[in-house]
């Protein structure tokens, strides 16, 4: 028997560990999408006029796109068309008017996060990590709030920021991803329910890792959260998001928008560990993860770095990007995307160089197993004024079965001649020689795969904050269990 056959046992599919449902009463919007839905959501959240207006404009824009059937089609993913009138656009756990402390959070919810391994309880908080927990559409708890306030760092739910800091929201909302950006960005702007908000003031190095944890619970709901992070001059913040959802037979839509802004000399490090329910072995159910993530290095010498580990969702469609507007600004994208079963992922990055001496790095690792299909899609655009700019792109694919696929579609567009771009791409299988070498040292085939796959991801995992790197490694291993070895 060849090592290949012995190794790649076809998908004994690891079962998804986060597939349960929390029994909780919720406040839900009527099914379907119309102006009344938008007004209902906005009223529910007691929003200022400017926000309702913005939502309505976005809604109208979305409806014209929908009528013209201008759904995004470029992605290399396939799915039945979505009935946008058959979705519940808002669902929130019923709570008392306002929560003053964690003690008032519904114990069912706390239990949910406990079960997910996310510490919200006072004593169990992970040292040095502040957490904002989003359940279905709303933020239910934020830890470390007071400590962060001492540094002037604002961190918490988007809704809260709308109430307490409307001027910041108005100034930056849509400044990086306007509602006209794309189909799902328009939809999100119209119906977004909550999300995280963070503002780091001038010169402050945020003392904690900030984390938002997203959980979809209710049935037939779409999740449309919106995250906005602003790093003022000379500040730094490291931010991480995690996510999971119950196992359901139907597909659920997750269309989030993330906007990052860095002013002069500021830096944002944004990490994602995405573990949405991917659907069952036959490809039934799972989350449609259609996300728009973009950062703007508005200031000189600023830096935005995206790191993502994508293991879940039935379909992922996302291109965390950076607009390098400030001179000498830096954009980075590090990604590991795993597709197995019938998962599809179309992901990559877009770097738009506008300022002088701007630099960007893209390292994308695609792992495909089973019938998984992974695509890297990237665009590096260098504008005429972005002289002496530099990009390095590397996309590597690792194939673990004969029925999976990997595709790379890198585009470049350079409009000056003092810039330098480099591109590398490799597709590999775990080689028989590597496996034998490991075996010869007493290492089992399964362990050998684990070593080799982790080695393949090393450059990306290295970018994650330590405890999340451990988490990412574990998640990847759990997801590959039964697929190889």
């Amino acid at each position, binding site marked *: 028997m060849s090592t290949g056959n*012995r190794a790649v046992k076809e998908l004994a599919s690891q079962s998804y560990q986060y597939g349960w449902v929390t029994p909780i009463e919720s406040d839900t919007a009527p099914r379907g999408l119309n102006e009344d839905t938008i007004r209902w959501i906005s009223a529910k959240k007691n929003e200022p006029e400017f926000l309702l207006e913005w939502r309505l404009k976005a809604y109208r824009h979305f409806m014209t796109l929908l009528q013209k059937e201008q759904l995004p089609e470029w992605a290399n993913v396939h799915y039945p068309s979505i009935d946008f009138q058959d979705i519940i656009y808002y669902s929130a756990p019923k709570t008392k008017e306002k929560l003053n402390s964690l003690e008032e959070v519904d114990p069912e919810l706390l239990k949910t996060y406990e079960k997910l391994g996310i510490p919200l309880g006072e004593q169990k908080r992970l040292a040095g990590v502040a957490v904002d927990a989003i359940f279905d559409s709303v933020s239910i708890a934020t830890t470390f709030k007071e400590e962060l306030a001492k540094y002037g760092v604002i961190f918490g739910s988007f809704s809260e920021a709308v109430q307490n800091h409307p001027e910041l929201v108005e100034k930056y909302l849509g400044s990086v991803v306007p509602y006209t950006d794309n189909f799902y960005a328009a939809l999100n702007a119209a119906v977004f329910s909550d999300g995280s908000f963070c503002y780091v003031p001038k010169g402050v190095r945020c003392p904690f890792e900030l984390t938002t944890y997203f959980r979809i619970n209710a049935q037939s709901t779409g999740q449309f959260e919106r995250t906005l992070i602003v790093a003022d001059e000379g500040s730094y913040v490291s931010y991480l998001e995690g996510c999971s959802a119950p196992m359901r037979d139907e597909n659920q839509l997750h269309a989030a928008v993330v906007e990052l802004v860095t002013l002069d000399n500021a830096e944002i490090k944004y990490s994602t560990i995405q573990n949405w329910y991917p659907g069952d072995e036959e490809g039934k159910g799972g989350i449609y993860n259609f996300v728009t993530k973009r950062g703007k290095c508005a200031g000189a010498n600023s830096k935005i770095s995206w790191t993502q580990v994508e293991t879940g969702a039935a379909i992922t469609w996302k291109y965390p990007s950076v607009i390098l507007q400030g001179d000498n600004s830096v954009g980075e994208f590090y990604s590991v995307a795993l597709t197995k079963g019938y998962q599809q992922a179309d992901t990559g990055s877009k770097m738009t160089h506008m300022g002088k001496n701007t630099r960007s790095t893209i390292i994308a690792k695609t792992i495909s197993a089973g019938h998984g299909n992974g695509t890297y899609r990237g665009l590096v655009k260098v504008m005429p004024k972005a002289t002496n700019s530099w990009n390095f792109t590397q996309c590597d694919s690792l194939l673990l079965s004969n029925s999976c696929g990997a595709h790379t579609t890198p585009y470049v567009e350079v409009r000056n001649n003092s810039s330098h771009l480099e591109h590398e791409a490799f597709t590999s299988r775990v080689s028989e020689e590597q496996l034998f070498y490991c075996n*010869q040292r*007493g290492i*089992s085939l399964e362990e050998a795969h684990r070593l080799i796959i982790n080695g*393949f991801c090393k450059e990306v995992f290295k970018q994650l904050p330590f405890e999340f790197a451990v988490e990412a490694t574990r998640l990847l291993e759990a997801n590959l269990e039964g697929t190889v070895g």
Partner: protein
Amino acid sequence: MLEVIDLHASIGDVPILKGVNLRVNAGEVHAIMGPNGSGKSTLAYVLAGHPSYKATSGRALFEGQNLLAMLPENRARAGLFLSFQHPVEVPGVRFDEFMRAGFNALRKSRGVPEMGVLDFNKHLASKLGIVGMDATFTRRYVNEGFSGGEKKRGEILQMAILDPKLAILDETDSGLDVDALREVAQGINKLRRADNAILLVTHYQRILSYVTPDVVHVLIGGRIVKSGGKEMALEIETEGYDKYEDMAKALRAGA
């Protein structure tokens, strides 16, 4: 320790080994010499269990166990080690991490508790001197960017860590400069004991002047055509394989 009886083996459908007989006892060093393509690495691979090499007939016993029926990792766990002629790169996996994985796999299979990172690193540090290797190497990725000589030192370092009963060294001397060769050969000598054995594949008598063999075998055309004492290696170095090619021809005609 190792007994090979009339072993035939092929790669795909191509027969390479055509009846190898060999017996290595504990405490012995056996050298295998032979021209390029004669099947030396094939023998090493078949004994270690490389999946592309198939034993088609004959037997190989390792301490009485039927070696050919064992998975490669179980052969390693039973105490068989192969120093590769061409050590393999494993990108992104640190050399120390890799050695620890093997070391602990062996321990686990023997019911010994696995060793933690800190203890292992100390253990590893204590072995570096055997091959004159710098600690910085162990933090690099397995064989990636190692020079030819560094790779070979790395193989012997692994031998020192895994402490096998039988080590098959496939051209460990190739690619080493004269000083490195002396250092590595002396390292190998330090690892010799009455209860282990070495099967050393080489083209050159130089390494044998440090690691003195008890028996020298000449392998040609997939057969051992002659076995003798260490002086045979010297003779081959000056006279080449002509004489043995003739013997091989005679053997083929007779077979």
